[in-house]
């Protein structure tokens, strides 16, 4: 498919938009943590009621999952024509 000749890319793909998106993302992240001052989390197991628990737990969960996946990938990844050969 030929690429239409446009001087400027879609507004969503411009660097300044991406900068604004990142800044607003960080602001939103911070505000969800600040919201913890105003809501009460019931705690049954103890730790899940502490300040900012879901924030660091979510972040850490993903880091761990990505790490495990990459480690497994070392052993289990094959070229995608593996079964066709």
């Amino acid at each position, binding site marked *: 498919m030929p690429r239409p000749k446009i001087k400027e890319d879609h507004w*969503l793909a411009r660097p300044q938009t991406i900068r604004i998106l990142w800044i607003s993302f960080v602001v939103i992240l911070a505000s969800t943590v600040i919201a913890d001052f105003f*809501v009460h989390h019931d705690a049954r197991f103890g730790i899940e009621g502490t300040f900012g628990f879901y924030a660091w737990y979510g972040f850490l969960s993903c880091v761990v*999952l990505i790490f495990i996946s990459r480690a497994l990938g070392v052993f289990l990844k094959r070229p995608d024509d593996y079964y066709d050969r």
Partner: protein
Amino acid sequence: MTASLGGLGYLLMPGVVMMAAGFVLFFLRGPGRNALIFLAPLAVLSLVWLLPEGRSEPIRWLGYELVPFHSDALGRLFGTVFAFTAFAAGIYALRQERRAEIPVAFIYAGAALGVVFAADLITLFVFWEMMAVGSALIVWMGGSGARGAGLRYIVIHLLGGVLLMAGIAGQVAETGTIAFQAMHADSPAKWLILSGFLINAGAWPMSAWLPDSYPEASWSGMVFLSAFTTKTAVLVLLRGFPGEDILIVVGLIMVFYGIVYAILENDMRRILAYSIVNQVGFMVAAIGIGSELALNGAAAHAFVHIIYKALLLMSAGSVLLMTGRRKCSELGGLFRTMPLTTICGLVGALSISAFPLTSGFVAKSMISDGAWDDGLAVVWFLLTTASAGVFLHAGIKFPWFVFFQKDSGLRPPDPPWNMRAAMLLMSFVSIGIGIFPAPFYRLLPYPVDFVPYTGAHVVSQLQLLLFSGLAFFLLLGWLKRTDTITLDIDWLWRRLGPMIYGMLDSGSDRAWQALVRRSQRSGERLMRTIYRHHGPQGVLARAWPTGSIALWAVFLLGAYLIFYYF
């Protein structure tokens, strides 16, 4: 009510009507066909709600009491979402070039509806097998690339059917009844039934069939496939094995299997297939927890998952149809020219991640709260990790790599109107349930005493998901797509099996050659001996002179005389 659905009334069973519509569709063309694709699922949907609650009159058959139709809250919930999804997917697939796909899909949907309302194990089994055949045909209709995957699919499902049949036979021998009711896996027969159900649910280690076969179906075929088989398995587990502890473990394995494989996957439709296993894992784990809240959560999650997964697959199918590509490494930047597909895909992605104001949020929080209420700490922490993982592999990864990331240079337009309409319909329902959960909660099997929109729920979910998003973008380099697949259990029968067979085959080939050579040689030797003795120059073939015969005769007679005297 028992009497009102006897005799001809059975022809009004939702499953039967849906299947009949499928058969008629084979012979229709033009506007009549389109009208039936439109109206049949709606008629079935109204039947689901018009047919009276309770069991139908039993049919006597070979000494068994069949109860093919039993309407209850759970059945109506699944019946509703099956009929609705058949409706939306039918509209979506209207222009599918393979004209047999919708008729077969309707028969397949009818079989699933048959399972939903079956109250005895024999009826259940019959519809179960029809479902296997119907779905395998849909896979095969994906074209020549789907041949092997379809074959592997049908073999696994027939194996599941055999396990189920053996279990049913054992159950009948033990209890003397074919009624399908809640049980505990405490005998070999029930273990067999449970494993038959779990194979259809895509439970690990028999999960590889799902990402192997579904993505090979056509762009519209996978929408149908995602809705019925795994979710009927969830339904029969809900009916048959609520509170079975082992299901918590099985479900959690499925959840993490789905996440890890989806993170490693490059094919957008295989990502979504792994994500089906992941989502069904949440439901299976909830069934294992077994409290009313958790069972409601499993049923609710199945309902909303069917809708947002169909939506995600519709947007992926649109991309596949318009670009002919499936690999993330070849896609990207499509938001420029496919805005509607992008937005609908994002709605599906946010729903599956259980963002507040989407259907996933009002359903999935019931499952984690179920674990929490029962004090199952490990289960709760793992489910919370998994919720973050869902956002990672389906919520961001799918839309990011397909619609955003780099500019692939592709400029396909949005798909035709009917596909856009189907995607919009699913998007509206996904968000509608998220914003107004009350009517949806009334459909659930147990009374709902659950408030999804509390400050704590919303804030904790937003923290969890948004910080997962942060992890995704910070570790993007590690998530870069490569042209690879990831080996699964099916390597055993796709690679190891043929390898062993090949080795045995070449081994036995050598042995056979040796045998042939040896018998050839001994045969030749035998022939040479015969030739030597009987051939033209052979001792026994010579013409002997009369004199020598007389001499030999005298010699023999002389010998005889000598022996006689001694």
